[in-house]
């Protein structure tokens, strides 16, 4: 058992290094700018939290975006009323996300399976529809809640000028641009706040997965009947998982607002809830790293593929002869720019068809294949592997 502990330490260390070096690693892929890096980290947190519920207990919530949304609203209200410091905003976002998920979870967890999914979906859609319309005094409706010059901000005193979210004076939009190996690499304060929290969240999730509590959640997924006849009350376990993942979602929402002080109602729409489901399944539900990978993949497509226009394509294919170039550009332009959804849809289909269990499962299968080849026939004698993590 000590070896698995060492493995976990290595996993955490590698994860941390990769996250912290994100700006350098992602720069060659055109994804090394602050906003997208922040989004990677924030949606990583969201998906990690969602995975604690869905990956471990198997309860598929279709309304998790609601907690992200209320987290954002809570954070922006903190910015408006209290201070532009991100700490109270984030803390309040987590609390509100937790309370809201406690309420919805308490009701929805009375049902299981698809009935549970639809209950969560219904609550989230109600939140979204109301936030968009009649709750506008609180949410500022379609436009989204923003900080303005004349907000009270009692802790900040009468600080004049444009308000920026900050951590004790360090503005979240503060960016240092450095050239490394000829690449312009942007180190952004906000990203490192997100990254630190992401690493913390990953560590929490690791602890949960390795804890008796995590085992209980897996047991819920495996056989609820046996749980009850074993003297365990499944409801508080599932509710705890639901609230924890709701708090993660609230945290993610709070961070979104901390990086960019705006909270829009679309964050609560079912498509946003569906997105985190897709992230988790795509990466690998029930695995530690999968959700983060899935979140990264989807956000990358949304931000990078949508920005490729014909000009960029012409440039990319410029090594081809001109006639061929035009043909290739017109074909490939179907998949980028305004066609980025098409690529996303195809990727979903390809990954789920050929890599059942998501990216991580696919990678570990590939890994097993390689090691088995290397070991020859020895591989067959090994004990059955535990679920990939």
């Amino acid at each position, binding site marked *: 058992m000590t070896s698995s502990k060492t493995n976990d330490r290595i996993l955490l260390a590698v994860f941390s290094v990769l996250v912290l070096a994100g700006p350098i690693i992602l720069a060659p892929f055109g994804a090394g700018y602050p906003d997208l890096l922040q989004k990677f980290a924030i949606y990583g947190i969201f998906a990690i939290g969602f995975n604690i519920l869905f990956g471990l207990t198997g309860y598929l919530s279709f309304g998790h975006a609601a907690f992200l949304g209320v987290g954002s609203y809570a954070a922006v209200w903190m910015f408006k009323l209290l201070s532009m410091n991100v700490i109270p905003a984030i803390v309040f976002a987590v609390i509100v996300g937790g309370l809201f998920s406690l309420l919805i979870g308490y009701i929805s967890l009375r049902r299981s399976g698809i009935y549970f999914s639809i209950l969560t979906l219904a609550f989230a859609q109600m939140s979204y529809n109301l936030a968009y319309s009649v709750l506008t005094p609180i949410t500022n409706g379609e436009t989204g809640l923003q900080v303005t010059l004349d907000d009270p901000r009692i802790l900040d005193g009468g600080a004049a000028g444009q308000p920026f979210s900050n951590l004790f004076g360090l503005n979240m939009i503060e960016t240092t641009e450095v050239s490394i190996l000829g690449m312009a690499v942007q180190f952004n304060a906000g990203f490192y706040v997100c990254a630190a929290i992401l690493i913390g969240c990953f560590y929490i999730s690791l*602890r949960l997965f390795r804890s008796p509590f995590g085992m*209980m959640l897996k047991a819920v*997924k*495996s056989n609820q009947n046996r749980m009850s006849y074993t003297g*365990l009350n499944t409801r508080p376990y599932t509710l705890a998982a639901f609230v924890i993942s709701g708090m993660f979602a609230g945290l993610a929402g709070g961070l979104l607002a901390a990086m960019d002080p705006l909270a829009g109602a679309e964050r609560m729409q079912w498509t946003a809830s569906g997105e985190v489901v897709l992230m988790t399944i795509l990466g690998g539900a029930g695995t530690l790293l999968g959700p983060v990978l899935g979140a990264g993949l989807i956000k990358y497509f949304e931000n990078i593929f949508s920005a490729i226009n014909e000009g960029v394509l012409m440039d990319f294919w410029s090594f081809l002869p001109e006639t061929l170039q035009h043909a290739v550009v017109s074909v490939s332009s179907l998949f980028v720019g305004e066609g980025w959804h098409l690529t996303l849809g195809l990727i979903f289909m390809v990954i789920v068809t050929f890599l059942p269990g998501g990216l991580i499962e696919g990678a570990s299968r590939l890994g097993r294949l390689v090691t088995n080849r290397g070991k020859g026939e020895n591989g067959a004698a090994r004990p059955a592997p*535990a679920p990939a993590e």
Partner: protein
Amino acid sequence: MGTPILQVQNVNKRFGGLKALDDVNLTVMENTVHAIIGPNGAGKSTLLNTFVGRLIPDTGTVTFDGQSLIGRKPHEINQLGVSRVFQTPEIFEDLTVAENVMIPAFAKRDGAFRLHGWESMSREAEIRDRALACLEDVNMADRRAMLAKNLSRGDKRRLEMAMCLVQEPKLLLLDEPTAGMSRADTNNTIDLLKQIVAAKSITLAVIEHDMHVVFSLADRISVLAQGHVIVEDAPQHIKGNPKVQEAYLGGAHL
């Protein structure tokens, strides 16, 4: 000996027009092996279901250790000290054999719910040792790292037994523990159950078809027919009882 641990009084249960349990009365004494036998459809499993909170009787009382079981949830009843082995093994298929046994061990130690999310499994040496000991008891220690779903049917049964035993229940309910087992496995199971009864202070209530098992284990037998207890007596008195023969053979006297 001599204290009743489970008392069933005037229990009735209807499913639509079918009277599944008809005024059942039954007393299980502490530290005995009590077998419940009867032909198919006699209501044996239904009766067991009323003990664990899966079914609530229409009327009547079920008292365990001086406390009523009626209206209690399954997990509450288990926490009182009642464990059950099912006819088709109910185990955690997606977990390893060792984890399957550790979960009930946690339930015994920590109660129905505990938010132990920050502790590490690797530090739970005590639980692990107890689980392994139980697996040793059922001769499954070597399979502890396997996923439960990959076990053979017989092993699943024994695993479920270990999951119940690790809780050191006061009352262990067994629903056909040897169904579908080979003669050798059946004898192993009988030996195992005998050891358990000898080593621990435990009460067993067994539903069984195999008379060999029943008569090797039981201190007392209740015979159920058409939802009604027709005889409750010591094994030696059951064998020649005409009522029992009638119930099983539809009146054809032997």
